[in-house]
Each structure stands twice: as C-alpha cells, then as structure tokens.
C-alpha cells in the first residue's frame, strides 16, 4: 500500500515536476490553438466538397475523408514526420504534428459538419436561392449557422478528442505535457508525474465532457 502511494502519488515528486509539466501544458495549448482551428476549417472544406454537385469534387472528398478516418493518427504522424524526409520533405516536429492533425481532423470534423448540413431542410436552400442569394452565400448565411447548431455537441466532443490526441506529439519529441511528464518519470524513476498529467487533463476536460454529455443535457433542459 505504502509502496503504491510512493510510486504513483508521491506529492514531493509531483510538486517538483509541476513546473516542467506546466511548460509542457503551454506547448499543448499552443498545439490545440493551431490544430483545432485548422481542423475546423479543413473539415468545413471537406464537408462542402463532399456535398458538391460535381462528382469530380465529391468523390475525391469522400476518398479523403474515408482514407484519413481509416488511418490511425499515430501512424499518420510517424509517416509525416519520419516518412516524408524520404521524399525530401523535412518538417520540424511542430509542423509535422500540425500537418498530420490537419489531415486527421479535417476528416473527422468534416463528417460532423456533413451530418449537420444534411439535417438542414432543403427548403431552406430553396428559399435562399429564390431570393437571389448565391450558393456560397446560402451556405454561409443560411445553411451553416443552422448546421453548426445542429451538431454543436458533436463538434465539442470531437474537439475534446483532438485535445487528448495532442499527446501523440510526444512521439516526435515535441515537449508537450505528456512528453514532459514522461521525462520527469524517467529521471525520478517514479510514475507520479504521469498521474499528475492525467489529473491535469481530467481537471481541464471533465467540465467540458460533463457539459456535452447526454445525461447532463437532459438535466439542464
């Protein structure tokens, strides 16, 4: 019992490794700040393209979404970071993470947007076009505002996934929080820094998870 507490919940070690973890958390935040907007934008492009009239736009969009949804993000990240140099493209770790996440997130966010767009009644588009709004204007001012509202909980939920997945960046030696925690573990021979990192994720994400959980929404309404 005592040993377990020493190994996992050593407060002295946690205290000592805390500044290091916070340095890592800054990088995690920076990653989220870059990767989430990129994914939201890429997803929008993917969703609009997969709803296009022309099959020459639609089919590549389907292929893109299917491919990157099938690809494990870790494999994708390693391929971008360690594979692209063989093609003469060398990216620094941050850029590699940003690119891999852009590809992966665009596919996932794209599916979420698409469900939201499909739930908007075609009558909305017809009404808008009948007043002389162009197709892009109709998308921007009529369809998307409703689509985003339709799937807001799913967008948030996907964003929680993305935040968690940023820990993959540790694989390419980007010193985000999990990387820092693991460094602290290896110098202290103690798992407490990892537990602390888990605690930080929990504190940050649990309120969001609670907010969008079906159960929580039922209580709220």
């Amino acid at each position, binding site marked *: 019992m005592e040993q377990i507490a020493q190994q996992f919940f050593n407060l002295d070690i946690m205290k000592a490794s805390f500044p290091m973890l916070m340095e890592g958390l800054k990088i995690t935040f920076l990653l989220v700040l870059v990767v989430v907007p990129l994914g939201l934008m890429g997803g929008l492009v993917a969703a609009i393209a997969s709803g296009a009239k022309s099959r020459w736009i639609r089919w590549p969009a389907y292929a893109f979404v299917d491919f990157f949804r099938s690809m494990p993000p870790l494999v994708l990240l390693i391929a971008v970071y360690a594979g692209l140099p063989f093609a003469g493209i060398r990216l620094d770790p941050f850029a590699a993470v940003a690119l891999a996440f852009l590809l992966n997130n665009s596919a996932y966010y794209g599916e979420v947007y698409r469900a939201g767009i499909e739930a908007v009644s075609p*009558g909305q588009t017809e009404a*808008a076009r*009948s*007043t*002389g*709004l162009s197709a892009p204007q109709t998308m921007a001012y*009529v369809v998307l505002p*409703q689509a985003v509202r339709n799937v807001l909980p799913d967008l948030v939920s996907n964003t929680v996934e993305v935040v968690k997945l940023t820990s993959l960046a540790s694989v390419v030696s980007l010193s985000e929080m999990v990387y820092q925690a693991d460094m602290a573990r290896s110098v202290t021979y103690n798992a407490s820094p990892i537990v602390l990192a888990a605690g930080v994720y929990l504190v940050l994400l649990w309120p969001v998870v609670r907010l969008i959980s079906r159960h929580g929404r039922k209580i709220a309404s």
Partner: protein
Amino acid sequence: MTLPILELAGLRKSFGELEILTGIDLKVTKGELAFVIGPSGSGKSTMLRCCNLLERPTSGAVMLEGRNIAASGVRLDPVRRRIGMVFQSFNLYPHLDALGNVSLALRKSLKLPRAEAAERAAAALERVGLAERARHHPAQLSGGQQQRVAIARAMALEPAVMLFDEPTSALDPELVGEVLAVMRELREAGMTMVVVSHEMRFAREAADRVIFMDQGAIVEQGTAEEIFGAPKSSRLQAFLARQAA
C-alpha cells in the same frame, strides 16, 4: 397587347424517364393574378419551380420581361430577385428574426447597406402588418405570421412577379384569412402573381384567370365564372366535384 411579364413556352420537365410537365404554354401579364388549380401530383409545384429555375426545364422557354431565363449562360441570381416565391412550408430561416429573414437578401444579394436594408425590411414587415414582430424569431410566431414574414421577404426585393405555392395549405383554418388578406392587398397594389392554391373562394374574388392543370398539362383556363360556373372538360368537372365533396 401588353408584353407578358412572365411567359412559359413549350415548357417540358422530366425526372428521369417520367415526364412531369408535358408542354406548358402560359402568359401572365402585368398586374394579373393567375390562379392555378389541379389535383395533387399534376405538376403545379414543378411548373412554379421552373419559373424561377429552382428546377431546370428539360426543354422550352421561360421568358421573364421578354428574356429567356432558361437559356444557358443566364446569371440566375439577379433574375431570381425579380421573381418572388412563397412556399407552402414558409421556409423562414429559424436562426434569424423576422427582420433578419427579410433583410438577408437585401444586404447580401442586392448589396444594400445595412441601415437601408433594415429600413426596407421594416417597411415590408409593416405592409404585412408585422412591424411589432420584427425582433421575433420564426419559432415565436404563429403559422399565419410566419407566412406573412415569408411574403414580406419575397416582396421586399420588389420583384416583377410573385409565385405562391399553396401558401395557406399548412395553416390552421383560422389563420388562412390573414394570409389571404395580405395577398389581396398585394394584388390591389398591382403585383403580378401566380398562385397555386385550393382556396376557391379567394379565386372567385381575386383571380383574373383560373388555370386548371392535370397530368402535367394545362387542360382548361378562363375567368373564375367560366371555370367554376361552366367547366367544359370532364376532368375539370370531376376535379371540382371532388373539391366540393
């Protein structure tokens, strides 16, 4: 002979193998209210939707103020501003209030400055008797009020012609009157209108011409007295008998 505002000439429309409109010829002159009746599935909505190219005709011409807008290469957005459309299910934008619904196209399509668009939208809402509801969202309005906002949305663009596709069919009976009253006022103000509806009383009182469609074709047309008082074709007679029953 005045030039028709809207003219359909040899209009055909097929969905796949199925020919839904089998050659429609129709002229609507300025200030006229053309009232279209016919059984469900006879192609009335499809005909209206061809008028503003929501549906592209398979062949034939749609002439708006003397120009064939169904020809290839015609920019449709400016053309559609000249043709107002009112739908059975209102199709108001639920995320915008009444003023937002009416002013959206004024701002984004007509490119009026925000203040001017708001002013014009408010005037349109005033005309349909909903000035005080400008800040209400569709969900906070009755069906009749929603349809009046939809009419204001179409009207605010000052179209050359307005199309109504069963504007009162989705309404509770007690809300039909307020929508018909707005349409009556529009007509008195000289608006050119094509109205698909089952409101025969309104047709008798307001229609310049009643057009009977069946199986994708115009079977018979004439004044309300002619169509309702002395129907010639057996199909119209049967249709009117079913309506009365």
